[in-house]
């Protein structure tokens, strides 16, 4: 922790950033921390309980100089933000943390979160400084990352429809999934547009289907699988199942994963004439 705290103090002292956003502990649990001055930086911690994707808070810190404490999965969000022109690279200082898993808050046995199982980003792929891991490094489980999706896809259509219907009956349209997702940064969400009204704003099974499916589609090629939406959902809808399905499709159809590099175009915009138009050179002298 000393390394992390020292880095934060250094950044604040030298006025490189206005705020350092990290994690701190209070009442026995971990919450987001906002440190404005060097003397407050002592509260910063990093351990298995640090589940939050702090990149989300950039929504309220655009055009400001901030430092963020980011795990590998969270740092991918920054790449997507850069691809979509939402921040300038020089405005953020990424304090990457080497991470080997965070806990699943909703499981009874405090096991690791599902996303940690096949993590390939123990060290963030974009950072300005990196804090090495203290403690034992538990390597991720190798194997098929989309196994659970493939199993689910094998079920008959009616069963799958029924499953999701039961899930969306629970949805209360609290939009916590949207507010905690770094990728949902739209000034006015499509669900709030009422001229014309594209999808129902009010909660009902049909409206809940529309909302969750539209959100999943709008995240296609952009979701970095941080899992925060599923964690935030108060009624335990398995949102990551939906998102992972689309992540799988993007991988299979376009060989594309979100948040890999900052200089790659985002999936929807990804069209390179030299790469995508095949010219048969044999034909032409």
């Amino acid at each position, binding site marked *: 922790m000393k390394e992390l705290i020292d880095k934060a103090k250094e950044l604040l002292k030298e006025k490189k950033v206005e705020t350092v956003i990290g994690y701190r502990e*209070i*009442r026995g*649990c*971990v*919450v*987001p921390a*906002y440190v404005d001055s060097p003397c407050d930086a002592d509260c910063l911690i990093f351990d298995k309980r640090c589940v*939050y994707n702090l990149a*989300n*808070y950039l929504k*309220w810190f655009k055009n400001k100089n901030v430092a963020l404490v980011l795990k590998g999965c969270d740092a991918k969000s920054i790449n997507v933000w850069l691809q979509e022109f939402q921040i300038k690279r020089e405005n953020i200082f990424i304090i990457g943390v080497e991470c080997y898993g965070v806990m699943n808050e*909703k499981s009874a046995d405090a096991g690791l979160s599902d996303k940690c199982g096949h993590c390939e980003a123990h060290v963030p792929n974009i950072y300005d400084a990196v804090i090495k891991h203290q403690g034992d490094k538990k390597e991720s489980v190798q194997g098929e990352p989309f196994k659970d999706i493939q199993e689910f896809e094998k079920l008959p259509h009616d069963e799958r429809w029924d499953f999701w*219907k*039961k899930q969306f*009956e*629970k949805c*209360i*349209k*609290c*939009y*916590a999934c*949207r*507010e*905690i997702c770094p990728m949902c940064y739209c000034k*006015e969400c499509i669900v*709030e547009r*009422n001229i014309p*009204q594209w999808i*129902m*704003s*009010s*909660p*009902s*099974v*049909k409206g809940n*289907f529309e909302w969750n499916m539209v959100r999943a589609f709008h995240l296609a090629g952009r979701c970095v699988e941080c899992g*925060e939406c599923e*964690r*935030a959902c*108060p*009624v*335990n809808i398995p949102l990551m199942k939906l998102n992972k399905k689309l992540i799988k499709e993007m991988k299979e159809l376009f060989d594309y994963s979100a948040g890999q590099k900052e200089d790659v175009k985002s999936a929807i915009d990804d069209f390179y004439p030299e790469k995508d138009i095949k010219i048969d050179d044999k034909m032409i002298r």
Partner: protein
Amino acid sequence: MISEMKKFIISKNELKKILAGIVAENIKLIAPVSRDNAFFLEEVSDAEKIAWDYSNVVKPVKEHIFPMREVLLDFGRGTDPPALDEPEARSSGKEKNPAGNMPPVKEQVIFGLRPCDARSLLVLDKPFLQEKYVDSYYKERREKTTLIAMACLNPEKTCLCSSFENGGPFSSAGSDVLCVQTGQDEFLVEILSEKGEKIFKNPSFAQPSGEVLKKLENLKADSEAKICKALKVPENLRELFEAGTWETESLSCIACGICRYLSATCYCFNITDEFEQRLRYWIPCSFKNYTKMTSGEISREKKSARFKHWYFHKFSYHKDNFGEYLCVGCGRCIKYCPVKIDFTEVLGKIGNSKQEQ
């Protein structure tokens, strides 16, 4: 007029039979049901599906009197295809006839709600059933609802119902019937109103023995001891409106709707016309669009303003208008907040801050 404060003992099976009887009389029975490790108050047709081992349901009971989505008027052309499981069915092919085609509100019995939820309806009655302005939709459902509360043996660490005058894990305020599980298969039932009497018509239930009553006192004391949180609203809250602490406390808030929707007492809603229906649906004051006016102006643009407003509505404005806090201490806002904001902590910090210009 109930004859006397009736208390009696029944077994779980007998209780289940009575609940099954309610269903048989074509009255809607709403009881706790388990869905993927979480509990919800839902309509049940089979008493066996009722869950018994829960701390509290996720969604407060207000949704059954003041639904999340309520059709106020239907001016449909009658040509729309039926929507997927709409809670209120569209009128079918009838010409424009406002309010004439709403399906009737059924009698309902809500079983298994906790005392905090039962009290929440007493709190909500004040704004919805004011002398001059009666909300007829709320009134109809409220009158047709019977509440059978289940006392709380194991309050959670986020509960703070005892901070309220008539609150507590064994409080009978607001319910028609209060049940307490005094043993493995033993329930002490207390009838509190005429509505409650109608449910438990059988006079042959046993009266509670002195031993059972002693057990009751002990269980109550144990339960009350488990409540570790208290509400302390700063007396000069109004003067602390401009305190800078609101800004810092609101930083981690993500402005979703969880605390508003899951609060047992929040009741703000929006009315819009959507697809040929006039709807009323819950809307959290945490959203920017909540204060958007026709000019496009948004009066609570900043997140800290929206964060602050919730506190002021619950602990200042509502007190001024209706003489009590808009809170029953169910603690759901603390339990389900995705970033673990505890409003009692916030109020504490505000109380310690100085008034700043």
